C-alpha cells in the first residue's frame, strides 16, 4: 500500500496530484501529515510541496475542466473527510477525460462522491452564514466563535467582508484554533487561541437580551414543532447561538 503524505496545505495536495501523474503511480491514499497512522504495511511517500507543480495542476483544472470543478476540489479539500484526497484524485481522473460537463455525470461513482462531499461543505457554509453570531467587545471588535464540522471559515470571510466592511471582526474556529481576522480593509486566516477571557462591551448584554426576547415572542405556541426546528437547525450548532443558551 502506498500512501502519499503531504503537508496539509492545498498546494501540498495539488503537488501530490502532480506527482501521481508524473510518477505514474497509483497511491491508495493521499493524506495530510497529521493523519498518519502506524501501519507496517504502508509505504509512505512524503510529498514536498512545490508551488510551481501546484500551480500547474491548479491551472489545468481551471482550463481543462472548469472553474466550478476547481471550486469543488477546494471544498472537498476543506471537508477534511477521510479518503477525501482519493476522492479528489478519482474525480480529477474522470474530469480530465470528460472536461466541463463532468459534474452532470452523476451515475459515475467518482463524480457522485465528489458531488456529495461538495454539497456537505457548501451546506455547512450556507448554514453558518446565517448562524454565526457576533459579540461586540470592549474595544469595538466583533467576535464570533464557531466549531464547524468542516474547515470553512475562509469561505465565510468574503461574505462578511462585504457586509460588515466598516467593522473590525474576528471569526474564531475553536475546533482548529484558527481565525479569520478582518481590519476594515482585508482579511487573513491565522493560528489563533484566546489567551484571556473576552471582555464584552457594556451594552452587549442588552442587545443579547433583546434578541432572546424577540426569539421567544416571534414563535407561535399553537404551531410548536421542535422536530422541524431541529431539522433546519441541527443541534451541533446550538452551543454558539445566543438565543438558545
Amino acid at each position, binding site marked *: 500500500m502506498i500512501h502519499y503524505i503531504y503537508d496539509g496545505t492545498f498546494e501540498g495536495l495539488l503537488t501530490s496530484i502532480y506527482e501521481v501523474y508524473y510518477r505514474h503511480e497509483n497511491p491508495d491514499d493521499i493524506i495530510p501529515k497529521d493523519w498518519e497512522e502506524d501501519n507496517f504495511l504502508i509505504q509512505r511517500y512524503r510529498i514536498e510541496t512545490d508551488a510551481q507543480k501546484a500551480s500547474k495542476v491548479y491551472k489545468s483544472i481551471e482550463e481543462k475542466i472548469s472553474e466550478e470543478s476547481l471550486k469543488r476540489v477546494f471544498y472537498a479539500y476543506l471537508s477534511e473527510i477521510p479518503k477525501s484526497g482519493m476522492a479528489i484524485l478519482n474525480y480529477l481522473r474522470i474530469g480530465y477525460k470528460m472536461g466541463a460537463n463532468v459534474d*452532470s455525470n*452523476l451515475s459515475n461513482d467518482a463524480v*457522485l462522491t465528489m458531488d456529495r462531499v461538495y454539497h456537505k461543505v457548501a451546506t455547512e457554509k450556507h448554514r453558518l452564514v446565517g448562524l454565526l453570531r457576533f459579540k461586540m467587545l470592549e474595544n469595538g471588535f466583533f467576535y464570533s466563535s464557531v466549531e464547524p464540522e468542516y474547515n470553512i471559515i475562509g469561505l465565510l470571510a468574503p461574505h462578511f467582508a462585504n*457586509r460588515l466592511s466598516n467593522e473590525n471582526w474576528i471569526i474564531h474556529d475553536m475546533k482548529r484554533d484558527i481565525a479569520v481576522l478582518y481590519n476594515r480593509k482585508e482579511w487573513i486566516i491565522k493560528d489563533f487561541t484566546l489567551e484571556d477571557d473576552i471582555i464584552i462591551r457594556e451594552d452587549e448584554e*442588552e442587545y443579547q437580551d*433583546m434578541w432572546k426576547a424577540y426569539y421567544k415572542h416571534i414563535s407561535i*405556541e399553537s*404551531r410548536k414543532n421542535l422536530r422541524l*426546528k431541529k431539522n433546519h*437547525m441541527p443541534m451541533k450548532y446550538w452551543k454558539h447561538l445566543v438565543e438558545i443558551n
Partner: protein
Amino acid sequence: MDVIEKLKVLADAAKYDVSCSSSGSNRKNKDGGLGDASLSGICHSWTDDGRCISLLKILMSNYCVYDCAYCVNRVSNDVPRATFTPEEIVDITINFYKRNYIEGLFLSSAVYKSPNYTMEMIYKVVEKLREEENFNGYIHVKAIPGADRDIVDKVGHLVDRMSVNIELPTEEGLKILAPQKNKENIFKPMEQIKNSIVRSVDERKKFRFSPKFVPAGQTTQLIVGATPDADLKILRLSEGLYKGFDLKRVYYSAFVPVSNNSNLPAIKSPPLVRENRLYQADWLLRFYGFEAGELLDENKPNLDLMLDPKCDWALRNIHLFPVEINKSDYNMLIRVPGIGVKSAMKIMSARRFASLGFDDLKKMGIVLKRAQYFITCKGKHYGLKSMNEEAIRNRIVDKQIVTDGIVQLSMFDKVY
C-alpha cells in the same frame, strides 16, 4: 415602557404574518455602509414552531383603529399595546444586523390614527436606515391600504420588498370579518406597486442608474380557515395574482384562533395540514406548469389532506403513467410525484452520459418512495403490477395525516 418590553409586545403582534423571506434582491453594500442583500436569502435562526427567522419582523405600532375579527390586534381586543419610535427601530435593526442575528427589517403596522399617518411613520424608519445609517440590508415593508400614492411611491424606492395583505379571499369574507376594509383599497396599492415595478424595470433598460423600485417584488398573505371558502377559490385567486399582478409569493397562514367572535369557526388548533397542502399546490402553479383547474374543480373544490396535490393529480390521470425516465421530457418529468425541479434537472443532465437504471436514481439521491409507482427505468417498472389507481393510492397516502385530517375535517363540518 422600555424598549425590550415594546419589542416583546410588537413581536407578539407581528408573528401571525408568515412571510419572513429575505430573497430576491441583490442590493450591494456602498462604500463605508453597512450590509448587503443575498439573492437567495439567508435564514438566521429557527423558532420553536420551526419557522425561520430571517428578518426582524415587528409592528411599528399595534394600536389599531380597525376591528377585524380574525386579527389579534383589533381595537376591541384586550392586549398590551405599544408604539416604537423610528429611532428605536433603527437602533435595534442596526445592532441586530451587526451581530448577524438578521438579514434586515420587516416592518408592518396596525393602522395607527390613519393609513397615511402610519405610512409616514414607516417612511421615517426606512429613510433613516437608508439615508442616515447607510444601511443596505434587506427591508420589507407593508403598504397600508388607504395610504396616498405619493407616500407609497417614496417608500417603494427605498425598500426591497413591499406587500399588501389580502387576508380574506372573498368580498363576503371581508364584509363579515373586516367591515372597515374593502377590496378596492387593497387592490389599489397592489396595482400601483406593480405598475411602478414595471416602469422602473423599463427605465433601467434605458438608463442604467435610474432608481430601482421594490426590486424583490411584492407579496401578499391569505388567511386559511377563517372563512368557509374552498381551496379552489383560494388557488384561483393566487393564480390570478401571479398572472395579473406579478406577485412574487402568496403566503398562506393557517387561521390561529385568537377570538371568540361568532362569525369565526370554533377550532381548537390552526389547520396546518391544509395550509401545507395549499403551499404544495401553490408551488405546482409557480414552478411546475400546473393550472388551478387541473388540480381542483367544482366537483372537488378542496385539496386532499391525505395526499399531496401532485400525487392526487397523477392518480386522477393515471393513464399518462408510467413515464420512462430516460426519454420523457422535462415538463412531464416534473409532473411525476416525488420528482422535483432539482431531481428532474439532475436526471436530464445525467442521462446524457448513460442510460439510468433504478439504482442510479437511488444513488443520485432521487426520492423514489412515491416516484417508483409512476416511472420506468430502461423499460422496467418497479412499482405495482398494474397501474391501478386505488392500489397505488393505498400505498402512498400519508397514514399519519389520515387521523389528523379527519379531526380537522370534522371540526369544520360542525361549523359550517
